[in-house]
């Protein structure tokens, strides 16, 4: 039976389509291989990823390394558990060889991922197949990715995203990047610079030097630009940085003493931000192309941390108009806001989920900080974390994971990035090499 191999391309890329003979039936059903992420408690699904096959001489190391990235992504999601290679009964000697399902069932591997790697010059080709072991069938079609050897980790992330997506029915998030503030130096003379990395902490690159304070970078929806607050002029202003050229410019906001807390609109054409004038902080919107400004709030209180809804029609923000920080939602063009947070304590830095269903926030109550989520009407509040200082959540592109800043207290206190599932499970520190804060999770890469 023949099945067509789908080919996905990674820039800079070549188009390839190929057919491949398959032993298993092409019409695989989802069958029992399914994780529903919203389930309260999830028993991680056992999977096996044998080293990928090297199809060209010298590709052996990459074949092993890429399989490791796949395994680490899936295990790191908290939804999967890897069965170690020592337990394997049968080895995969060739990518085309029929799968010995009984051997994988015997070690309780519910999912099996096989792959093959070929290197030609600096061109890297990775193929993979996902098998539902207990159904004895392939889950989805084989996929092939073509890119460059320098982007080999992305190939692993692509494979893991495809496997995650087929098994959970949700979009993946592994082939994505995070922009954040890398910090160094003592607490009373902290140096900050913008950095970008893969979601898992690999491939860190610095985007600015640490000559002036930078705060809270925010990715554009397409991941090619970053807005952030910079003290380069001696006063907080909003800068726009091109991720590829690292060129940066200060954007012209409505006239005011201090501009900060910027965020892109979903089409990437507008910026919403806070502007301080005479001690009063309100939310404004500026069109990047026309330079037109619009004031969206006009209360004597602090209005800050605005974030658009995914459909662009509404803005969630924080305000202390009631006396303490609370979360409000208003129409994207301004207008009467409605309060959505009513619990005890203070609510700050709201971020609308990319799925539109939830708002993540920072909650401060009785000397503790939490990252939490609530529905957009304020109901079903759930606190996912607790520490002496957690703040500034950012959503994974599939809306299932949050990354945030956790800072320890005292003279040696240091910030680090953590991630946690929207269910509150799978709390883990993101390795960043240095102190880190204010993450913004970018989109899934094309």
């Amino acid at each position, binding site marked *: 039976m023949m099945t067509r191999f789908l080919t996905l391309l990674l820039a800079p890329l070549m188009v390839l389509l190929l057919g491949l003979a398959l032993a298993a039936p092409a019409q695989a059903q989802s069958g029992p291989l399914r994780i529903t992420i919203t389930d309260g408690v999830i028993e991680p699904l056992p999977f096996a990823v044998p080293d990928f096959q090297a199809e060209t001489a010298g590709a052996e190391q990459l074949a092993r390394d890429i399989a490791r990235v796949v395994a680490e992504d899936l295990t790191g999601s908290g939804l999967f558990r890897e069965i170690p290679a020592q337990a394997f009964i049968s080895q995969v000697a060739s990518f085309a060889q029929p799968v010995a399902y009984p051997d994988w069932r015997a070690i309780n591997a519910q999912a099996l991922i096989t792959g093959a790697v070929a290197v030609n010059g600096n061109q890297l080709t990775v193929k993979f197949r996902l098998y539902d072991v207990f159904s004895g069938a392939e889950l989805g079609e084989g996929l092939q990715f073509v890119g460059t050897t320098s982007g080999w980790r992305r190939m692993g992330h692509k494979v893991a995203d495809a496997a995650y997506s087929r098994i959970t029915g949700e979009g993946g998030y592994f082939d994505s990047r995070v922009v954040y503030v890398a910090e160094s130096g003592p607490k*009373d003379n902290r140096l900050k610079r913008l950095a970008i990395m893969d979601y898992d902490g690999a491939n860190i690159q610095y985007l600015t030097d640490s000559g002036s304070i930078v705060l809270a970078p925010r990715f554009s929806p397409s991941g090619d630009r970053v807005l952030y607050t910079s003290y380069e002029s001696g006063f*907080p202003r909003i800068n726009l940085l091109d991720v590829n050229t690292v060129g940066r410019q200060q954007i012209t906001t409505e006239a005011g003493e201090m501009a900060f*807390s910027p965020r892109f609109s979903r089409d990437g054409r507008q910026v919403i931000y806070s502007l*301080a004038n005479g001690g009063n902080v309100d939310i404004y919107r500026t069109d990047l192309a026309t330079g037109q400004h619009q004031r969206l709030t006009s209360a004597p209180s602090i209005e800050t941390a605005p974030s658009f809804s995914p459909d662009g029609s509404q803005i969630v923000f924080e305000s202390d108009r009631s006396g303490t920080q609370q979360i409000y939602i208003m129409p994207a063009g301004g207008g009467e806001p409605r309060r959505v947070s009513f619990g005890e304590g203070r609510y*700050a830095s709201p971020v609308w989920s990319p799925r539109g269903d939830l708002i993540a926030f920072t909650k*401060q109550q009785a000397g503790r900080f939490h990252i939490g989520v609530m529905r957009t009407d304020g109901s079903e509040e759930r606190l996912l974390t607790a520490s002496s200082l957690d703040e*500034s959540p950012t959503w994974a592109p599939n809306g299932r994971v949050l990354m945030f800043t956790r800072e320890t207290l*005292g003279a040696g206190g240091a910030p680090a990035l953590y991630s946690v599932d929207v269910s509150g499970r799978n709390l883990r520190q993101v390795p960043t090499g240095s102190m880190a804060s*204010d993450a913004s999770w970018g989109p899934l890469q094309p």
Partner: protein
Amino acid sequence: MNTAHIKKAVTAVILVAALGLSACTRPDRLAGGAAGGDGGMGGPGGIGATGLDGASDPRSPQYFSQTVGDRVLFQVDQSTLTAQGMETLNGQAQWLLTNSDYLVVIEGHADEQGTREYNVALGARRANAVREYLVSRGVPASRLRTVSYGKERPIAVCSDESCYSLNRRAVTVISISAGS
């Protein structure tokens, strides 16, 4: 060829003379103004005396920061001036009216017990409270600018009230006006 060379040489001599002239006039003007406090006193021989003179000279920036007091502190999550704060600001206003060559940047700060954006906004409120008070005491608003550092620039690094109370501050930073 020859004349061209000579012309160039002559031009160079004139340029050097012009530079020398301006270099001569500048120190005279500065010395005559005597606005610089310790800067003007730093002649040969005044080794140890410079620093002492700076702090005791009521027109010096050191006197402003140490004797008048360059900062006011705030209660938790507040931007209302305390009675002690107003007293300090009365002294600042008086000093700034006497020393009218100085421009001011008021820096607002917050302690670490708050989210980053909110603390920037809170620092802006605190800096503005100081500005409004100074203006009410007669300091021209055109000499005053404000900036908020939120929780980015703590001066005390422990994580209890003894440090937080020092970090919740507005600092009046003075600099000599470039135009004077």
